[in-house]
């Protein structure tokens, strides 16, 4: 536990109207590691993930208490520029969702809204991002074709490339492989392990093996609470909480 803390939550609580979806969450997420969030459906994993890039702001009646500290700054504090925050914390969704535009424009979208105009810079970013997402070779000859013509697995890697194009520090992934076939899933897992060198990654997964394979640390969520948070090895081999063990061994929900 000597790595640097990238994100830290303190007594984080979240309400959807009257319903409490997160209870007293205290997590230390380490830089350049993969942190997996596991737990049964509806336990608040996605909700937690979205507190980190403030995507919950969109939801009417959503109230948040406590702190989320990112690089020593409380992102729910005053004077926080959400745009800069989201530029630093990218997100990849469960269902691949490339925009209805060309592959090139999908990747260039983020840099463009953040003010990159020069064609040569954009070209460079596009190629670099696609390479990082291991999809460059597959699409380099058809950058101008519509992104929706790609396969599901390619689309998801494109979405990862799109998130990387704005040069984030953290990448949030909400079940990024659940809509994909096993081969695409493996490709994305490899990609995640590769990205870890440069990015802090938080991934929600329902796939226990996946969690075990790619993550350094794992948090087990249950009914809006973190039941156990530890090194992945520890969680999977020697959980301290019996509920964690129940869940991991599949005797749960």
């Amino acid at each position, binding site marked *: 536990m000597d790595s640097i803390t990238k994100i830290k939550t303190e007594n984080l609580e979240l309400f959807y109207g009257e319903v409490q979806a997160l209870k007293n969450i205290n997590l230390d997420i380490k830089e350049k590691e993969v942190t997996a969030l596991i737990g049964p459906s509806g336990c608040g994993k996605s909700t937690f993930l979205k507190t980190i*890039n403030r*995507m919950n702001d*969109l939801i009417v009646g959503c109230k948040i208490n406590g702190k989320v500290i990112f690089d020593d700054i409380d992102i729910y504090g005053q004077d926080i520029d*959400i*745009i*800069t*925050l*989201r*530029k630093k914390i*990218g*997100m990849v*969704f469960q*269902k691949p*969702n490339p*925009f*209805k*535009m*060309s592959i090139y424009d999908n990747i260039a*979208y*983020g840099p463009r*809204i*953040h003010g990159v105009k020069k064609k040569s810079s954009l070209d460079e970013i596009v190629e670099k991002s696609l390479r990082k997402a291991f999809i460059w070779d597959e699409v380099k000859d058809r950058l*101008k*074709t*519509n992104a*929706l*013509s790609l396969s599901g697995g390619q689309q998801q890697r494109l*979405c990862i490339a*799109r*998130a990387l194009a*704005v040069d984030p520090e953290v990448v949030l992934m909400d079940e990024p492989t659940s809509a994909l076939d096993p081969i695409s899933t493996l490709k994305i897992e490899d990609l995640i392990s590769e990205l870890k060198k440069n990015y802090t990654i938080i991934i929600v997964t329902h796939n226990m093996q996946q969690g075990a394979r790619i993550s350094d640390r794992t948090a087990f969520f249950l009914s809006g609470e973190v039941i156990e948070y530890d090194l992945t090895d520890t969680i999977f081999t020697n959980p301290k909480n019996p509920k964690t063990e129940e869940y991991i061994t599949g005797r749960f929900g």
Partner: protein
Amino acid sequence: MKKKLDKLAELLFITSAIICVLALLLIMIFIFYKGAPSILETGVFKFLFGVEWQPRAEVFGILPMITASVLVTIGAILIGAPVGVLTATFIVYLAPKRIGNILKTATDVLASIPSVIYGFFGLMIIIPFIDRFLAGGAGGNSILAAIIILSIMILPTVISISESSMREVDISYRDASLALGATKISTIFKVMIPSAFSGIMAAVILGVGRALGEAMAVILVSGNAPFMPDSILAPVRTMSANIALEMGYASGAHQEALFGTGVVLFVFIFIINFIFYIVKHKGGVKN
């Protein structure tokens, strides 16, 4: 037994479909049958590009009407399309649910108002306004009045169709864009609206059809002068207005010339529908 019923149902569907197509064909044949001879008699060129409309003397030139239809329709689209699309955008992405619902209800009501009421409103409110403040007392029945009324009349079409096409856009596009650090507004204009582009185009094109075909309201506000317009405040007569205005009294060659006007209008509408078809069918994947 069940098979027989199935067969019967199938027969019913096919018959209905045939009746539909037949109705369209019949209308087309009827209009061309009644109108084409008149155009040919006058001469296609003289009919389309003649500027004089003198039914009693059997002089039929409809260039003023064609010009009026085109100008009025373009004007109505230039105002109605952006306002309609922006309203739809507001309803779908920006307005609180309650306000969105109020707006949608308002749109539905707007759609159900008979066109003669629009015309009446134009006659009583818009024309006097133009007369007093813009035309210096020289009338008010004008291209401008027709444009204003028509741009209001096409709003429901534009709003409801662009609204539903915007709703079809995957909401996760919005999340993806926001998560990249885009603002709400740039998300709407750079991702959501472009994704709904083909639907929005369809909405606009249907609006064009509506504006081109409207007669009742236009008659009340446009002034109906068969005159080559020289300003936006000039009175004009559109093709639809020409037909609706004079058909009641017309007989003989005059009546045929009105059908001839109908043929030209039909060709315009047909072209619009053709564009609609193209946009709709290539719209699926837009690059």
